């Protein structure tokens, strides 16, 4: 993926660009709003990481608004030290596609960027999702593993759908909380893990190969290969 990082803090920028390059992406970096707007407008990118507060006269939100006005639909993840809900809403309403609060775990950033880039590629309305021999019919809401039909609760269905839509990508607990339950607070107990292990029991019998992996220090990943 070709990623543009607009971030004025040198240390954060170095941390992010190095990490993204190690993950195999092509990264461009702009240290201020003017360069950021210029780079974003002049070259196509798969996804943009935009700091909310930038020095100088153009801040992150203004760049996003300018890009959107010009018809640029590149997915944008907003990085911000501002954590309140109003700021998050303002960022997303202003044209951002996701919002991550500083400080963040690099795994969280990577997972969200993957999800954003994927979302922009296949936004088509699929009727079925498939990972290995696990099939989900979105219309009839039937889920099968091989020839075995699975009985899922509505919330388990939603959880599995999200994981399958992001197959072969890391999905963090926070992403699941936001997407499946619509909660933007952290429960103190490991509730998400318990939901995952329950789901895992249903989709993976002992005899079957594992599909849903736990990625240490990051989250989960649905894999269609061993």
């Amino acid at each position, binding site marked *: 993926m070709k990623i543009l990082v607009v971030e004025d803090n040198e240390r954060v920028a170095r941390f992010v660009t190095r990490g993204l390059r190690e993950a195999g992406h092509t990264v461009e970096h702009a240290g201020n709003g003017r360069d950021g707007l210029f780079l974003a407008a002049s070259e196509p990118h798969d996804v943009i990481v935009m700091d909310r507060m930038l020095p100088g006269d153009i801040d992150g939100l203004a760049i996003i608004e300018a890009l959107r006005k010009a018809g640029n639909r590149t997915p944008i993840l907003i990085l911000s030290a501002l*954590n309140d809900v109003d700021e998050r809403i303002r960022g997303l309403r202003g044209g951002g596609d996701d919002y991550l609060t500083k400080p963040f775990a690099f795994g969280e950033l990577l997972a969200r960027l993957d999800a954003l880039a994927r979302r922009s590629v296949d936004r088509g309305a699929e009727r079925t999702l498939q990972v290995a021999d696990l099939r989900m019919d979105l219309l009839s809401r039937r889920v099968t593993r091989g020839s075995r039909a699975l009985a899922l609760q509505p919330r388990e269905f939603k959880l599995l759908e999200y994981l399958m839509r992001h197959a072969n990508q890391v999905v963090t607990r926070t992403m699941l909380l936001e997407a499946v339950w619509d*909660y933007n607070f952290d*429960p*103190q*107990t490991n509730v998400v893990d*318990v939901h995952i292990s329950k789901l895992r029991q249903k989709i993976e019998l002992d005899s079957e190969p594992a599909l849903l992996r736990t990625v240490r*220090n990051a989250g989960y990943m649905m894999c269609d290969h061993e």
Partner: protein
Amino acid sequence: MNRFIRSSAVSWALGYVLLGLAALVAFAVPLWYAWNVTIFAGREEILRNDAQRLTDVFAHEGVAGLTAHINARVGMQIAGERTLLLTDANYRRLAGNLAAWPQGIPETPGGHAVMADLAGQPTHTLLVQTTLAGGYHLLVGRSLSLFLPLERRFTWGLLAAVTLLSVAGAAGAILLRRRLLARVERIRQTVSAIMQGDLRQRLPAARSGDEFDTLSRTLNGMLDHIEFLIHGISNVSNSIAHDLRTPLAELRSRLEELVLTRPPPAETFAEIDAAVSDVDRVMRIFNALLRLAEIDSGARRSGFVRVDAAAVAAEVVEFYEPAAEQKGVVFSFQADGEAAVAGDPVLLAQAVSNLIDNSLKSVSAPGAISVRVGRRADGAVEIAVADDGPGIADVDKPRAAERFFRGDASRGSPGVGLGLSIVEAVAKLHGGVLQLLDNHPGLLAQMVLPLSARTGR
């Protein structure tokens, strides 16, 4: 002097003095005018009639008759009441009580106010002169000196009033200024003492209930509130410092140990992972504090919508069900129909989630947690989470929702001690309260949310 004038007490007093003077002038000028009209116009009319009567006598009886008539009248009347003089064409006196034709009377007929020589002394006199047939001159007049004492009294009275008003006004201004300054100065001294950090100072407020006392009492109320808030902030700051110190100390010692011992890479990475967890813990505390600050500011109230508290609680219960199941705890949910409130669905969910979280942490299998949403008789919505765990000791209940407070029972369990603070803040934001009761055994935590959220601070 300049400062004296600028004092608001003085300018008010001076303003009132000027207003009083203006009122006096407004009173005196028309009176003076009316007085003059009466004297000159009224008196002149009478004199004219008198002159006409004398002219009639002259017409019927000739010069001799008129002379006799005038002499008779002068002999009868009280001296000085009426001035009469008849002269020939050359102004030689024929009859009357004036020694000679007075100087300074214009030729024209009609009334004139002049200084006439009456009985040897100049007197302010109103005179009407008539020229009779044959060139005879007739003068009829009346001394105005009779009114002089009255005019003088009027003038003196006016002056006295003006003086009294000015002196009293100036004295009032000085006294008022001194009195106001004294009280303002007391307030100023107290306020500057407070500004220098002595927040326990209060403004003097007597029981008299005048405007200053009302002001002082209002300001004292404000100071009480500020002191309470500052006390709260310093408490919270102390707690934050204390509670952040622990994970930061761990982090520091972990990193320092790494530097000192330089363990093999595998061990180093494990330690770095642990260090990242320490940082995450600090971040969790920060996020919880920021969330609390956000709720406390009341800004979230602008996003209130109609929320079914029962539906929100049902979702949170469903969210926690697997976790309770895994722990071997019986989890039950009961709702008496819809429980609509004006509120923030995400915050309400977080509050319910925190309560369930607390219960899950304290209950040990085989325990029970029950969540109930219902309406009270007064229409308030009640969200209750009850468990049969160790509960909160009665002595700790009033403080359980304080920031970073951790009862003895929960000291060993994970968490940062802000869960109940957030629940209480959410309840307050919705105009409600958080009640912590005994479930015999266990804890019964109730959020009571009134129908209208407008009452909360």
